[in-house]
């Protein structure tokens, strides 16, 4: 028999951003329990709203399969007394025993049919544990000290195996077949079956499917609404019955910078911004409600009023902040702690200015503009606007600098200096901005590593991974001539940056990990050069000769290792000792290509160089086909090893081919 199963954990409002991970975790825990207990079945659907996590499964067996449990008794040779004793111990008579033949001889054996336990009973046992194990970043207790923990109080539990309730209790709530509807649009107590669960919820104001809620919201977002996937996802999991309303605000607020307006709308009010045809902010917004309609327009009026108050605040902050220019705020940074051991933001500013001068010199950036930007970089931390809208730090600094008549280059650099904010974010738009952003991030990294605050495991309170990621991304994408060795980094920090570089090239740029290893193994100091070598390698890799040659290089490396030849060791080839034919031909081809490859490499034409190296393949193949490296004559053998070593050394400067994973 194959049974369906439904679990609904009814809860007070779960934070939106925790819902999807919790669902995934619940699915894993439940699937593991099915497997572990041999219950059959698979999870067929996971759905959630802020007030419920729902799991559906199908194909569960009514019980575990029956098993034969065998117990080995005494050897037959021990006689009837021992056999009777064994039978008695098993609670049966001698006649129920069988004799089996094992390699050790004949033995009594008792086989008992063990009936599998009922799925209902097993689920009743395991479900409380599963619910308690669902991972949430921060949990609470509510039934009293020492009571069960969950993200928010659980108020009902639906657990049905076909028509039957799976009986259990969690946090003083008994499982049943009663769910609860939308807080205002539905009944508080609704009997459900597996078949009608979703429709009953719909009838009571709850749209269980996240995809359907998403579609409902999207239907209210026309082409004038600025796309915002993260906000959309938040609203999907903040509502059970979403609908959109469009509100307006007084166009006079459009005098404020768009960044400020849209941040207020997005972060504080969770509204979508609306744009006019030219991509400029329009004086309206779209809000998402958790009810189906706003017939009297009350919700729209309320939201408009709140937004007006927020914009008034922002305008007030803008006005007050302008009374003290950024340059006069720099000294106030002495009172703003950057990090206890690393001092104030004023001290950080002094360090960043010094660093900016070095980096500007190395990259040919405008040193005056970069230094000025560095000086004003953190001054916006003392403004009311940033205290209120912390997510706008940097951006507010840039806007204020512009309002205060700083050169555009300086303003843009301040504006952009937190960029890139993530893997997908772009780097600062100008060279000055890139230099300043780099200096700021490098100072944070050097400082934190210097006082022993390198990230460990998942703990990274200063977002150092993101900072390092930003350093890599800026250097590579802006093609800055900044070899890591010129940045005076500790070994630990260099390793950390390289680790982030690997991550960047793999996850952001899509290179294969063995290509990245091959290129970094050759040299990793200049990340821009790493990028162009990687790009060439990826282009040449699919060509016919490449992978077979890589396999041969690995073979060469093994041979050399076995012969204890140190890689890169000076190796003089005596042409007189070369055997005419494949060996001598390989040698002359090597000599011919060596100069070509070297010239191409120096011209940074890595693709041509790699193609030239790959063209060596037929000669290498022939060599291995016809020539025995371990010649009885030691001098000949050493000469061959020298030839192979030269090949490997000379042709590994772009990428270490032996790092390439091949199927050959």
């Amino acid at each position: 028999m194959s049974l369906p199963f439904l679990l609904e954990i009814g809860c007070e409002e779960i934070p939106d951003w925790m819902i999807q991970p919790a669902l995934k975790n619940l699915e894993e825990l439940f699937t593991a329990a099915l497997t572990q207990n041999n219950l059959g079945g698979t999870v067929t659907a996971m759905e959630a709203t802020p007030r419920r996590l729902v799991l559906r499964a199908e194909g569960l067996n009514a019980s575990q399969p029956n098993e034969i449990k065998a117990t080995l008794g005494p050897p037959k040779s021990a006689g009837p007394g021992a056999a009777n004793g064994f039978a008695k111990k098993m609670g049966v008579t001698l006649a129920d025993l069988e004799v089996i033949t094992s390699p050790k001889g004949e033995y009594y054996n008792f086989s008992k049919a063990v009936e599998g336990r009922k799925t209902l009973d097993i689920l009743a046992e395991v479900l409380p544990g599963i619910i308690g194990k669902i991972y949430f970043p921060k949990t609470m207790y509510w039934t009293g000290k020492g009571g069960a923990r969950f993200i928010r109080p659980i108020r009902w539990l639906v657990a049905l195996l076909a028509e039957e309730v799976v009986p259990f209790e969690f946090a003083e709530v008994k499982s049943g077949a009663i769910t609860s509807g939308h807080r205002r649009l539905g009944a508080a107590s609704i009997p459900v079956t597996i078949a009608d669960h979703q429709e009953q919820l719909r009838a009571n104001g709850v749209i269980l499917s996240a995809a359907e809620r998403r579609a409902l919201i999207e239907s209210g977002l026309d082409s004038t609404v600025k796309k915002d996937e993260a906000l959309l996802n938040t609203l999907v999991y903040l509502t059970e019955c979403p609908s959109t309303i469009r509100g307006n605000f007084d166009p006079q607020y459009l005098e404020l910078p768009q960044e400020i307006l849209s941040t207020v709308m997005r972060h504080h009010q969770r509204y979508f911004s609306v744009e006019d045809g030219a991509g400029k902010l329009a004086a309206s917004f779209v809000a998402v409600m958790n009810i189906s309609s706003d017939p009297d327009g009350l919700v729209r009026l309320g939201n408009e009023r709140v937004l007006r108050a927020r914009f008034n605040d922002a305008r007030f902050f803008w006005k007050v902040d302008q009374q003290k220019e950024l340059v006069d705020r720099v000294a106030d940074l002495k009172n703003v702690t950057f990090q206890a051991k690393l001092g104030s933001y004023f001290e950080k500013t002094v360090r960043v200015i010094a660093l900016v001068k070095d980096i500007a010199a190395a990259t040919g950036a405008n040193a005056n503009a970069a230094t000025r930007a560095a000086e004003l970089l953190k001054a916006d931390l003392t403004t009311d606007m940033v205290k209120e809208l912390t997510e706008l730090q940097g951006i507010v600094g840039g806007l204020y600098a512009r309002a205060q008549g700083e050169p555009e280059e300086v303003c843009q650099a301040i504006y952009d200096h937190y960029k890139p904010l993530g893997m997908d974010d772009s780097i600062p738009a100008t060279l000055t901005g890139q230099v300043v952003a780099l200096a700021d991030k490098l100072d944070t990294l050097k400082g934190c590593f210097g006082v022993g605050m390198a990230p460990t495991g998942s703990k990274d309170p200063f977002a150092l991974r993101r900072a390092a990621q930003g350093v890599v991304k800026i250097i590579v994408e802006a093609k800055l001539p900044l070899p890591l060795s010129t940045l005076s980094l500790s070994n630990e920090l260099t390793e950390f940056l390289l680790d982030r570089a690997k991550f960047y090239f793999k996850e952001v740029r899509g290179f294969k990990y063995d290509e990245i290893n091959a290129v970094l193994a050759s040299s990793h100091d200049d990340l821009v050069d790493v990028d162009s070598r990687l790009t060439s390698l990826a282009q040449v890799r699919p060509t016919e000769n490449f992978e077979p040659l890589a396999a041969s290089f690995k073979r060469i490396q093994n041979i050399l290792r076995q012969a204890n030849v140190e890689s890169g060791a000076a190796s003089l080839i005596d042409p007189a000792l070369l055997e005419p034919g494949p060996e001598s031909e390989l040698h002359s081809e090597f000599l011919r290509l060596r100069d070509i490859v070297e010239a191409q490499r120096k011209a940074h034409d890595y693709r041509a160089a790699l193609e030239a190296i790959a063209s060596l393949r037929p000669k290498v193949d022939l060599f291995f086909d016809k020539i025995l490296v371990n010649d009885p004559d030691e001098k000949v053998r050493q000469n061959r090893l020298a030839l192979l070593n030269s090949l490997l050394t000379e042709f590994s400067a772009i990428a270490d081919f032996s790092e390439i994973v091949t199927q050959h």
Partner: protein
Amino acid sequence: MDSFQQTLFKLKSYWSDRGCIIQEPYDMEVGAGTMCPETFLRVLGPKPYRVAYVQPSRRPADGRYGENPNRLYKHQQLQVILKPSPADIIDQYLGSLEAIGIDLRKHDIKFEEDNWESPTLGAWGIGWQVMLDGMEITQFTYFQQCGGVDLDLVPAEITYGLERLVSFLQGKESVYDIEWTPGVSYADVRLADEVQFSVYNFELADVGALWQLFDLHEKECQRLLDLYKKYEDKQRFPLLPAYDQVLKCSNAFNLLDARGAISVTERVGVIARVRKLAVGVAHAWMDQSNPVAASEVTA
């Protein structure tokens, strides 16, 4: 349209009907209703308790000289504590909104994650800000810890921001336009308060004197806490007055903060000094009301 005070009467009577003692505001300067002994000390220990009171709450740094339509140095909170929290607490809360005339089928209510933490009180809880048509009207918290003590019974704390709620109900753009009672506006009652305290808090408060006050109250509290350990008849020991000293320290801290006299570096240290006192009083309070339970706490 109900006046400010009529709305207040309705809310008080609503919670009175649900078993709450209706208390009057605590007669000292506090930053939030949570700090009153009716909350801070009553939530400790295993004894159920239900109380509601309006608490004028002083946040010196939020003062705006009466010029900002929504920000106040002192606002009125309605603080409701239900210990332990009943299972239908949110429905009860929504019922209170209906009771003051909000038709919830026509308005949008959302519960958005907002966990509350007070480092000065060694207290934190899990909860939401309740949004009504995009406006935060209530902070809802399930307390987990107070004075560094894990709570035996988990109380629900409902804190209504009365000015916001009533300006919503009355459709006012500025809190100062709220009708307190017919013919009398919020500005008539409170504007002078906002202006004068803003001037004092931001411009004229004597930093040296405030530090002296902070030190004096800290010392007095610590003296009492030390005395408690040796005191024979613990039941009559003045812990409530000791807690008043904590509130005095906290208010001095807020004033110094508004005056810009506390650097960020110092801030953590000063908060820790107040917390030490609050935690000390909370533990002594547990010991005084239930010697057995307290020995478990400290063990």
